[in-house]
């Protein structure tokens, strides 16, 4: 059997096995899950080292590994394994484990299938199957998740139909279902329509506006480990993978189509982070962040120049790492405290130091603080936007401002989150919880450290190994004369400087401590604040959201104006009421319809 097939077949068979095995066998499901995901990871590593593979199934080149898919596949494998490891700790003592592990493994198989598919029909089937698994995984959380399950399956399933439509048009346009073919310029209306349909499916999977509505709902309601696995990491990778695949390989985008990407990116970025800023639930807040960060990736790809695209893809990786890690810490907090509401948490840093450290690392990384990975990738997106501006026009300023401003707001909302969960005073008082077990903290801290390493050694490791080969393989992005398009910027020196700065700060602090520190009571409005009073952090940065222009944006976005699901629901509700009126009983309506219809048919046929 072809090596590529193992990544799909092994987790699929293991998933079915786990799903049907009786629950009485203790530890068997977990073992199968871990072994299968480890095998998948090993095969993914092997395929990554091979670089370019084409696998024939039924004599057709159904599966293919190229520069873009090989690194995405590798990361799918890595996330698969880490998340399963975490799940063993997280899901312990919960019910419906057969469903949970079974659907997780099937998701892994489908994700590998999406990445490897070289046949568009296979892509659609795997893509939609992944959506199905997503909805089943969220459902494992029970009746409280039913609304989120419904919304997810409508948005994700509905856009699957759009993807199928796009694929069918493209098939008949080019006469082939292969994904390896000449890029089509988006100059005809039909090509534009096809591209937009593809983009809608990618947006929905990745969680870009206006198809983002399901992400925060699922993030809040679903099991934290499943959310970290699918919406936070795998769906991001795959959504952006598809967007990159169609934008760079299948189509030659005209500036008008690129503009759509840029607008969607900017709106997603700002809208998502504005919503994140006002959330009171850790998982929901992270869900809006997961939406917001997609904006950078979409903008990056929308710039259509090598630096920007590389930045977008790199940010996809950084975001998946950081966001996966953040949701895992959210799961750890939920496991120990039984809630993720910021109003009921606080002061956990002392009790769960590893969770705090991971959360801090990931939060800094995703907020774009140097020298973390998120900084490097955002910087490249900025560079890409500036390069886009060199081509003329003034719109690029908007994208740049949106990107930079979004980054600042991201940091602000993470300060709020870190404070609300880990700093301050524990809301319930009393003895704090223990740190979670190694199965749970190991994946978290690993991802947190990787986020840092990917910033410090950005050029030497991730860019060199993953991103540059993928970008260089795109014909339309080749720089004439094979010039170097990355502005090599010495991150190592920057890191040393930052460390030096921190070290000097520490020295000053230590030196200052020698002298007496003045201690005083805390006052609020002239009243002495009791020592046990706590500041929740949920009210942080209300000054930002209270500024008149932001308040308006906030209110507009808060009213779900950016969510296509809400519009769709209103429209369908209106039409369905109309349809109900038409069906108010056979004799009142049905007979009239019958006769009128018969008359029309007669009139049309027998003129």
């Amino acid at each position, binding site marked *: 059997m072809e090596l590529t097939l193992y990544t799909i077949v092994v987790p699929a068979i293991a998933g079915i096995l786990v799903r049907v095995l009786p629950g009485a066998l203790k530890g068997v499901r977990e073992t199968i899950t871990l072994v299968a995901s480890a095998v998948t990871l090993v095969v993914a590593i092997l395929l990554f080292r091979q670089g370019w593979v084409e696998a024939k199934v039924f004599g057709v080149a159904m599966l293919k590994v190229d520069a873009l898919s090989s690194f995405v596949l590798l990361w799918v494998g890595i996330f698969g394994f880490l998340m399963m490891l975490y799940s063993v700790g997280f899901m312990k003592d919960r019910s419906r484990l057969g469903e949970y592990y079974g659907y997780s493994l099937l998701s892994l198989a489908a994700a590998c299938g999406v990445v490897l598919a070289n046949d568009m029909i296979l892509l659609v089937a795997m893509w939609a199957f992944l959506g199905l698994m997503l909805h089943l995984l969220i459902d494992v959380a029970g009746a409280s998740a039913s609304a989120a399950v419904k919304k997810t399956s409508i948005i994700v399933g509905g856009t699957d139909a759009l993807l199928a439509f796009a694929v069918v048009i493209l098939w008949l346009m080019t006469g082939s279902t292969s994904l390896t073919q000449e890029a089509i310029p988006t100059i005809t209306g039909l090509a534009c329509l096809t591209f937009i349909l593809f983009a809608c499916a990618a947006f929905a999977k990745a969680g870009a506006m206006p198809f983002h509505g399901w992400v925060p709902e699922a993030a809040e309601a679903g099991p934290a480990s499943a959310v970290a696995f699918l919406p936070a990491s795998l769906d991001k990778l795959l959504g952006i993978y598809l967007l990159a695949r169609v934008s760079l390989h299948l189509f030659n985008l005209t500036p008008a189509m690129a503009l759509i990407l840029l607008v969607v990116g900017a709106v997603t970025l700002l809208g998502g982070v504005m919503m994140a800023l006002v959330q009171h639930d850790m998982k929901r807040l992270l869900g809006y962040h997961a939406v917001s960060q997609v904006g950078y990736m979409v903008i990056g790809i929308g710039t259509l120049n090598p630096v920007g695209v590389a930045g977008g893809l790199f940010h996809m990786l950084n975001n998946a790492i950081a966001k996966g890690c953040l949701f895992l810490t959210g799961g750890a907090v939920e496991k120990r405290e039984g809630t993720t509401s910021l109003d009921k948490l606080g002061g956990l840093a002392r009790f769960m130091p590893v969770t705090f450290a991971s959360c801090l690392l990931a939060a800094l990384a995703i907020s774009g603080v140097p020298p973390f990975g998120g900084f490097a990738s955002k910087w490249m997106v900025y560079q890409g936007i500036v390069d886009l501006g060199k081509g003329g026009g003034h719109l690029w300023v908007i994208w740049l401002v949106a990107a930079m401003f979004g980054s600042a707001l991201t940091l602000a909302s993470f300060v709020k989150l870190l404070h609300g969960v880990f700093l301050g005073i524990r809301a319930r008082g009393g003895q704090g919880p223990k740190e979670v077990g190694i199965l749970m903290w190991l994946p978290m801290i690993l991802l947190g450290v990787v986020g840092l390493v990917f910033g410090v050694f950005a050029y030497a490791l991730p860019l060199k190994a993953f991103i540059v080969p993928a970008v260089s393989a795109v014909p339309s992005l080749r720089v004439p004369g094979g010039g170097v398009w990355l502005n090599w910027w010495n991150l190592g020196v920057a890191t040393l400087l930052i460390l030096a700065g921190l070290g000097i700060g520490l020295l000053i602090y230590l030196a200052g401590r020698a002298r007496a520190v003045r201690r005083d009571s805390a006052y609020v409005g002239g009243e002495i604040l009791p020592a046990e009073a706590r500041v929740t952090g949920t009210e942080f940065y209300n000054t930002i959201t209270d500024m008149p222009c932001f308040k308006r944006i906030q209110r507009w976005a808060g009213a779900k104006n950016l969510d296509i699901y809400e519009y769709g629901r209103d429209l*369908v509700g209106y039409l369905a009421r109309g349809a109900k009126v038409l069906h108010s009983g056979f004799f009142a309506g049905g007979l009239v319809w019958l006769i009128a219809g*018969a008359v029309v048919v007669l009139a049309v046929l027998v003129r």
Partner: protein
Amino acid sequence: MTSALYLFLLVPLVAGVLVALMGKRSPAVADALATLAAGVLSLMALVSVGKSGILWITGGVPPQGTPGMSLVLDGPAVVMLITTNLIGLAGALYSIAYVERALKVRHHALLMLSLAGANWAVLAGDLVGVLVAVAMVSAAAYAMLAHRGAGADARAASKYLVAAGIGVALVLAGMLVTYGSAHSVNMAQVAKTVGTGPTTWHLLALALFLVGLGLQAGMFPFHGWLVGLVDSAPTSFSATLCGVLMKAVGVFAMMRVLFNALGATPTVLSLLLVLGALSIIIGALAALAQNDLKRVLSYHTISETGFVLLGLGLGTRLGIAAALFHMMNVAVAKTLLFMNAGSLEHATGGTSYDRLGDVKHKLPVVGATSTIGALSLSGIPPFGGFWSKLFILVAVVQAERYGYAAWMVAGSILTIASMARFQKVVLHDQAREGMETRRAVPALMQAVAVVLTALCFSMGLLWLPRIQADFFMSAAKVIQEGVTYGANILGM
């Protein structure tokens, strides 16, 4: 052995008569007879794969101008026979446990009568056969509605009688008009006269059959009768009716008459496209506005029929093949969901959305099989419904009907929305007030649902290239080639 074709009509009719005669004494006999007959029919249908034949009821090819009745077994008929009789068997098995004792004889006898009607509609080589088939199924449905005698059900029965009467009258009128212009009621002979180009009489016949059989199929705007019927009929009968009977006497007979006998003109094809497209959206929208599972399912029948009509209306081979395949997939998924609605009714006493919830945990088998059925109906892979809907879409785009393609995609999204709503409200949500599981769902009913679920899983395999070519494409060829059917049959 073409005379074996008689058996498709005789087996259910004889079984029906025997049920009526002997079932009174012991319902077990009625159960055994009905199941046996449906089982034999299913076996015969499966054996008929790849075979073809023509049986002249009136003895030899009659001269033009005399009524010639025949039964024709060919590609499309085989596809439909398998669907009809297997679902009929599922219906018979299910109703062993579902139907209450007092109702059994009547239910089983009428089920057999309607199966005979459906088989006749599928095999009919003449318009008389079509008319009789339509009348048989309508009569069975009416008798099924009228069984309780008085009250709301009786009113529903009388309303249905009006609609069915109009339907039968229109088919009768179509037959008479055809006889008037073509001097034959045999579809092959009628087909041979069409070559010269459509006359006004011929167009009139087309219109009458389109409306009359469209009414049976549940095509918009002739679908009004369906919901009233589903409200009152036993759910086991609704399952077979919406699953296959409407498709056999409605869609399939319409396909035969319009394409093979009368020759579908471009206007007829356009009408099929328009009415199919309207059925898709209006059925799905009406389903979204309903709060009762059985009503939701009956409106989805209209919507799904719309997809089939859209495939047929293209007039291309792929469109017709995908439509036939979709008809099979929908038959399985729809029957499954209707049976589960019946199981819910059996266990909790109702199918209203307001009084259900958490079925997933309260009745795990019903919950799990309903999930799969809903997913297949929504067109989610790997279930059968995904593949057939996808290839109807391929056919629509291939015909460069982009507007219809977009419309169809919108219809798919509405179906997904409605099925997601069903899953949320009935399967996932907390149980609502007033819901109590009074009885367990009998094992037999669950077993039938499980088998149909397995079919939902595996039917996608029927679209593998070899089977697709031998089974669906060759059947579609017969339909697509239109009135050459006449020469083919008469030369046989």
